[in-house]
């Protein structure tokens, strides 16, 4: 029996490898150097190249846009082992993901856990075709770290809700088709007066405005709702129980942001430092910077080992939701420290903002952008609160 499973998996691997080699265009096997090279789908989505479109269409036919969801939802129906093999084979060839969407990474898991059968069939099938680009509406001007303080209200108006209020920090809000939102449906209670609502961004009364960051870029928008009609069937889960879904989803978001530091440049910091500062008697000439690099490298390596250990323990059935707070905290902290250290290493060049030579201040802007890592997805302080209360069980009074 066991050997049969092994044989099947080996066959699956060989078939997958062959299929990828035959179907993944060569240019779709190169590392991504610019966010534009990702295909986000939706009604406003555009392919940046012919190869990108071919790759998306082929994976779509294969039902591998979301290979691990059940077939009835439009997924590929792969079991975890098969999905793992597909991932391994894709990274072996360097295949890019054919489609990126918050619907896959964030909303999907929440729908699978909390939505009605009808909602799952409808929305998950859409997501698997890349037809709808999803964005997230959580934070508000007065509900950041204290997210449960959110005030965007959804009033019961017969067969629909009437939504009024505003959201901030909507990633790519201007490009979204649908937004999953936390809204207030009961003002008499804080945490248990929140509901999880799916809103069509083409509805009358929805507008967005870009937020420009200190890096000079603006991936975020503010999103305004002015008496927007939302059908009742767009409510996910139970009325006033949206906070449960929000917490579940934030866990996913934290794991995603925690991995930000990994998308790293080709040269290691120590190699860059040798180029810029030179060596003296066989070691990096600036010994103070050298020990800072070595310290960061130590923590990066040990953090990677810790992620690996958590995955191993997860497979063995030990799971701690609160641990994601630690990964969010530490992963972002390392990427922030690395950007700071990069400035020290690069000296005068590091703050250069507009020249061609600096690729329009790429690194300086990365640095500025990194300051958001300890804020978005729950601030450092909020993560530490969660660890203190949920893992360490420290008292509240």
């Amino acid at each position, binding site marked *: 029996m066991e050997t049969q499973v092994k044989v099947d998996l080996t066959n699956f691997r060989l078939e997958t490898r062959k299929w990828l080699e035959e179907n993944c265009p060569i240019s779709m096997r190169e590392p991504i150097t610019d966010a534009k090279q990702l295909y986000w789908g939706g009604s406003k989505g555009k392919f940046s190249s012919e190869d990108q479109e071919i790759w998306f269409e082929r994976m779509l036919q294969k039902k591998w846009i979301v290979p691990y969801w059940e077939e009835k939802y439009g997924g590929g129906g792969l079991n975890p082992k098969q999905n793992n093999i597909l991932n391994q084979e894709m990274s072996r060839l360097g295949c890019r993901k054919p489609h990126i969407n918050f619907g896959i990474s964030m909303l999907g898991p929440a729908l699978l856990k909390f939505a009605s059968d009808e909602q799952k069939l409808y929305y998950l099938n859409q997501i698997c075709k890349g037809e709808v680009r999803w964005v997230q509406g959580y934070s508000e001007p007065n509900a950041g770290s204290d997210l449960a303080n959110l005030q965007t209200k959804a009033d019961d108006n017969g067969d629909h809700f009437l939504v009024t209020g505003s959201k901030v920090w909507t990633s790519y809000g201007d490009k979204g088709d649908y937004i999953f939102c936390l809204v207030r449906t009961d003002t008499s209670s804080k945490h248990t007066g929140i509901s999880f609502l799916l809103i069509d961004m083409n509805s009358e009364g929805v507008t967005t405005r870009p937020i420009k960051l200190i890096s000079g870029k603006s991936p975020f928008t503010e999103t305004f709702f002015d008496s927007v009609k939302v059908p009742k069937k767009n409510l996910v889960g139970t009325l006033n129980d949206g906070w449960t879904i929000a917490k579940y989803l934030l866990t996913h978001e934290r794991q995603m942001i925690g991995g930000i530091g990994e998308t790293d440049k080709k040269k290691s910091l*120590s*190699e860059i*430092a*040798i180029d810029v500062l030179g*060596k003296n008697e066989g*070691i*990096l000439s600036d010994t103070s910077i*050298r*020990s800072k*690099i*070595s*310290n960061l*490298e*130590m*923590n990066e*390596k*040990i*953090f990677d*080992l*810790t992620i*690996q*250990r958590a995955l191993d323990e997860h497979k063995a059935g030990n799971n701690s939701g609160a641990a994601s707070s*630690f990964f969010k*905290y*530490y992963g972002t902290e390392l990427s922030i420290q690395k950007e700071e250290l990069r400035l020290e290493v690069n000296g005068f060049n590091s703050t250069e903002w507009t020249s061609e030579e600096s690729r329009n201040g790429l690194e300086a802007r990365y640095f500025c952008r990194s300051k958001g890592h300890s804020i978005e997805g729950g601030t450092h*302080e909020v*993560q*530490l*609160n969660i*660890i*203190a*209360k949920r*893992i*360490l*069980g*420290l*008292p*509240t*009074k």
Partner: protein
Amino acid sequence: MLKSSTKEFLDLKSPLSLVREMRDNNYNQFSSELWTEMVEMGWTALTIPEKYNGLNFGYVGLGQVLEEMGRKLTVSPIISTVLTSTSLISLSKNEVLKNMLFQEIMNGNKLCTLAHEEGSHHSPNIEISIVSKKDDVLVLNGKKRFVIDGSISDYFIVSANHESEKNVDLILVDSKSEGISFNNKVHMDSRIYSDISFDNVKIEKDNFLSSNGDGFEILEKTLDIARIGLAAEMLGNVQQAFEMTMQYLKEREQFGVKIGSFQSLQHRSALMFGEIELCKSIVLKALQAIDSDDEKLPELASLAKAKLGQVSKLVTNEAVQMHGGIGVTDDADIGFFLKRTRVTQRTFGDSNFHLDRVAKINKY
């Protein structure tokens, strides 16, 4: 299995109070009763290959024992005799000595330690000690510092430069040999470390654990194993100190509330929790690397020792601070963890040494 049986055993035989008791008994370094039971538990045979009648349980196993000992601050010759000496002897090609020493160590008859350090800081290099020929006999001259369990060991494994061959020799020396003098020093952790002088100590040809110039290689690998094993003990130290502190935060009241409700203490506690998680990962990975003979052993050993050096400093400092006034009294046990880790941070190289080594290994 090994971990829980070790914990059970140590809970019973080596509670924290034993460290205090041994200290107050004129810095007693050795409980023969405890040692006999450890030998019966098989701890001296854990890493000895089956070929020599050992248990061949591996270093992940020994690491679990060391970690639990770290929680209890157990005073025993495990670090000197098992972790360090047995590892070195395993790497030797001198089969006669191997058979003899493994037997004696496993039975608990003899204690053995590495006499290597010479300077104020850890270094794998040897500057002073030398083996030379004098009137047709081999003699050892030199001075070793900071020898763990030097005052109670039966044998020293001494590292020395060979006068004519420029190689590093590793020589087994009987602690009662003529020409040896001791200066035993009590350190902060209530343990004795010896400065030992060797003055024309006669060496038998058969007592070399190194052969054909492999001395330095054996020494380096032994040091890496010792660094990792000590890091495992330190992991036990910090976990225990941290847990005791969390307990205190949940009990102690000031301003009418539990002090653990203060956010300044909560955030620092959460940071320590994370750092300790990192420590667990690197210690486990490094122990596995010994067992699998991973080529990354040197780097992993340095990462482990560097990280545990830093985190043990952080955690023991915070533990004392969070205990407040009681934390700086001798009545509280928490101070023992601070004092033990201040010594282990330096033993086999401190964080500065190992971060420098990580940089060298990675060529910068």
